[in-house]
Structures are given as structure tokens and as C-alpha cells.
């Protein structure tokens, strides 16, 4: 079974941001870009399915040249090869543009199963997997808490507000996984060394036959008009419980009209 796992490089939002001592401005170099946490679950699921059913695992990413670090991390977990779509025309892509590009790239790979994370932590839209399924015309098995493949049949537990739906389809299919699916492995030292020599293909928009006007900022269907930082939350009142903590808290709730 040939599996493609899609991963995105995102800014490490939880990194401590530092000032540069010389300029006293934000040191952007120190804010790391990382593999989207949820995509580690996608890579893990791909590797587990490969362990059970054989075949290959190919990592696919769309992003700038430096996204190669992210690809390396995914390869070091144990994937076989990687494809990176990179092109100056891609900057500013909206979710629909991203899905068109990923779908075109998947079209060049002979994939039985495409696995996504459920959401990228930077934009938090969570729609790219469903869009790719729609563009490719393959069954959309998204938001999976469990994935089972049996021959050419694939079955997932799709999370819902109140529980889950068991959804069944035939391969080829498109899956996205939530973080309840598995526990991603840490890359081993051997894996990290091996990742350096694994095959990596780079594709441009021209290689994929995509019109640059249809993607990137040029083809984006949305635009940011303005933005502003909101004042930080004011410091709250903190009390140490000496037996009266609950009473003080109740009084606070009363002043805020909750009681």
C-alpha cells in the first residue's frame, strides 16, 4: 500500500520569543519553525499502516525552501521519501489554493492512501484534507480517531459532537487524523542519520502544470483588510487559600454578577 503523509511547517507558537541584545527587536531567527504537531500523528499513522500492510510512505509538503527541515524530521521518523512543492508563486495561498497544489502533487504519486493531520496550528482552519478529497474526487475520511485497513476496504471512526461515526470506503481514499489516533514516535539517532540520504523530489508550479494565477496570493479567495493587537488581559487578583479562598472567589463571582 503506497501512502502519502502531508505535513506543514508552522511557526513554533509556543517558543519563548527573545529580544536581540544588539537591536532590542524581536529575534525572528530564534523563533523556530517546526513540523505541525498534528502532522506527527499523520506520519505515525502512515508508518503504522505501512508496518501492517507493506508499501511505501512518502512525505509531501508545500512550503518555502526552509520547510526542508520539517521534511527531514518526518523522514527521520521512518518515512521512505519526500516531495516538496516550492515556488515563489505559492506565497499567500488560501486553503483552496493549497488544496489544489497538494492534489496535483498527489496526482503525480501513485497513492492508495493519503493521510493528513486534522489541523495546522498556525491558521487553524482544518479544511485542507476535505478540500483535497473533493479536488481528487476521492472519499473524504476525515477527523479519524481510528483507522483500519482491511484489503482494499478502509474504515475509520470519525469524531462527532456526541461520539463517532464509523465510515467505510474503498481505497484510494483521503484521511485526516485527530490526536487520539496514536502516539507519535520520537526519531531515533539512526533515523536522523538515515533521513539525510533519503530521496527528495522538488516540484515547481510549472512541473505540476498549475497556472500561477490560480494559486498563491494571486489566486487567493480572501484578503486581510486590517489588523490590530488587542491590549493584553490586565493582571487579575490572585489569593492564597487560607480557608477563605472559596468565600473570596464567591464574592468575586458576585461582583461580576454570576451570583
Amino acid at each position, binding site marked *: 500500500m503506497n501512502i502519502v503523509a502531508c505535513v506543514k511547517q508552522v511557526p513554533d507558537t509556543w517558543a519563548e520569543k527573545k529580544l536581540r541584545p544588539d537591536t532590542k527587536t524581536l529575534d525572528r531567527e530564534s523563533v523556530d519553525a517546526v513540523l505541525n504537531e498534528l502532522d506527527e500523528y499523520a506520519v505515525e499513522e502512515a508508518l503504522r499502516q505501512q508496518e501492517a500492510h507493506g508499501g511505501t510512505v512518502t512525505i509531501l509538503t508545500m512550503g518555502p525552501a526552509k520547510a526542508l527541515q520539517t521534511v527531514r524530521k518526518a523522514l527521520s521518523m521512518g518515512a521512505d521519501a519526500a516531495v516538496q512543492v516550492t515556488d515563489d508563486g505559492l506565497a499567500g495561498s488560501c486553503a483552496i489554493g493549497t488544496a489544489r497544489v497538494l492534489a496535483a502533487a498527489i496526482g503525480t504519486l501513485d497513492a492508495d492512501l493519503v493521510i493528513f493531520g486534522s489541523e495546522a496550528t498556525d491558521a487553524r482552519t482544518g479544511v485542507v484534507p476535505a478540500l483535497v478529497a473533493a479536488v481528487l474526487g476521492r472519499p473524504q475520511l476525515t477527523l479519524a480517531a481510528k483507522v483500519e485497513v482491511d484489503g482494499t476496504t478502509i474504515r475509520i471512526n470519525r469524531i462527532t459532537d456526541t461520539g463517532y461515526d464509523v465510515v467505510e470506503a474503498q481505497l484510494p481514499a483521503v484521511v485526516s487524523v485527530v490526536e487520539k489516533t496514536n502516539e507519535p514516535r520520537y526519531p531515533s539517532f539512526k533515523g536522523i542519520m538515515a533521513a539525510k540520504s533519503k530521496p527528495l523530489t522538488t516540484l515547481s508550479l510549472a512541473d505540476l502544470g498549475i497556472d500561477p494565477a490560480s494559486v498563491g496570493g494571486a489566486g487567493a*479567495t480572501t484578503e486581510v483588510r486590517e489588523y490590530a493587537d488587542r491590549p493584553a488581559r490586565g493582571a487579575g487578583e490572585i489569593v492564597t487559600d487560607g480557608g477563605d479562598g472559596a468565600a473570596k472567589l464567591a464574592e468575586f463571582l458576585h461582583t461580576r454578577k454570576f451570583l
Partner: protein
Amino acid sequence: MAEVLVLVEHADGDVKKVTLELLTKARDFGEPSAVFVGAGYPDAQAVLAEYGAAKVYVAEGADVTAHVGAAAEVLAAVVESAHPVAVFCASSASSRETAAVAAYKTGGGLLTDVVDVEEGLVARQDVFGGATVVKSAVTAGTPFLCVRPNALTATPAPAESVREDVTVSLPEAVNAAKIVESVNEVKSGRPELTEASIIVSGGRGMGSADNFAIVEELADALGAAVGASRAATDAGWYPHQMQVGQTGKTVSPQLYIAVGISGAIQHRAGMQTSKTIVVINKDAEAPIFELADFGVVGDLFNVVPALTAEVKSRQA
């Protein structure tokens, strides 16, 4: 008058509050029409009319209820025939998917996690955990705006709802994704997390599933919903549908009470736009205190039951 479509969020006809919020907002931009996909329309009819749906497009039957992706086909078909000025959906995981695919199929554009819609269909979004306010617009085709539950206010404006049935033929790929079983795990009489105006959440500090009774009791005294951190859902102490955070629900209630939760960035991502935040934690260094409007450093096993008693006595 031009139509504004509202995709109805419901469980077998039990309409979610967010739909009423969307119908209310839709009136600012045109005539609200609802799109109802699935079973249970007879139960939904009255409330949709009460909140001003002049028309309801209904797609029911096994075809649309039993396939992942069918709702997007229905929504796209209605957009093609009704030419609405905009489509409003809830920013829930599955409705975002539906809106995105329908936008793609009809040449529209999508914005998610919207907290308000202003003149000219400009969408306000709170990003980076509420630290930055962004105003965005769709620049191509029909705007599909996915709005966060609890961000808008619902007010009734009764209309004569006219029903219009919609039938679609599903593409092969949608037909192939069959829902073979639906499992319901959560049954509680409490308010739904994303709709609740008060939420009491428990974390690893609760120590066990049984101890969640302590937060449930406080929640019931306040008429609140109960949430949990991932540490608590992963341990099996509380259902994962109740998880708040990055990979759980995004909530912004009037009051959020975090009990025995440290405040990891992934938890904060789901709750830091709450209007008032209260923290109970025995570790004064826990990062969740940075968000607190009021915090108690103390043992939750003392503070929470005492608070529940206070609440009950003040209400008596």
C-alpha cells in the same frame, strides 16, 4: 431581497443555538434562508421560522444522512440556484469542511473562526488566542463565513417559513464514503460546551474519573457545562468530546473556571477568549494564572466543594 444562506447545525432536528445566532446576523445582509441537511426537519421547523428563516431548503433521506461530504453537495447546489450574497455556517469541525468544499465547488471563498460580521460582509477574526484582531473579506465569488458559536446574539424575528425540497445526485466519491454506524457516547443534561455561558473544566489535578463529580456539582450549581483538559480525557476520566483546547472545542463563555489545569498552550488555544477566567490550582507558578481575572492558589479538594456550598447558599 437577496438571500443569505444559513447552514443549520443540528442533531436529528434539535437545532443548535449557533444557527439562531447566524439567522439573526443574516438579517443585516438580506433575507435569511436556512439549509437543513439530514433527518428531523419537522422538529426544527418552528424554531427556524421563529428566528426569521423565510425559506428552508430541506435535503433529507438516507442519501444525505449516510455519506460524508453529502452536506457540501447540497449546500453547493443551493448556492448555484439561489445565488445568495453570503453563506453563514458554524465554525465547527464538520461544518467548516462542508463550507470549504461548497466554496471550492461554487468558486467562492472561505473564512473560518469568525467572531463578527461587519458592513460589507467584512469578517472579524480573533487570532493568536485573541491577541490580534483581524478584519478579512472574501474577494472571489460567494463569501462562506464560518462563525464561532456564542460570539453573536440570537433574537427572534418570526417569519413564515416556506419549505423547498432539494435533491442532489451524489458524486461517486461521496457515495463511496458510507456512514455504517453512529455511536453516541455523551449523554448529559448539561448545556453544550460551545453554547454554555459558564464552563467549569477539570484537569489532571482532579486525580480520577470519580473526582470529576466535584466539578460536576459546582457546574450544576452554576448551570454550567463541564469541560476537561487533554490530560483528563486521555486518562479516560472524562469523554474526549468535552476536551477544551487546540484539538478539542474552542469556547468563549462569559465565565470559564479552570480547576487543576496548568494552562499548556494547547489548552489556552481553546479558552483564552473567555470573557472572565477563574483559576483554582495549588501551584502558584502554573501558567494558567497569567490568564486569570481571579485566581485561588489552593487545593481544589478544599476550594471547589466550599465554593459549591457558597454558590448554593447564596442562591437559596
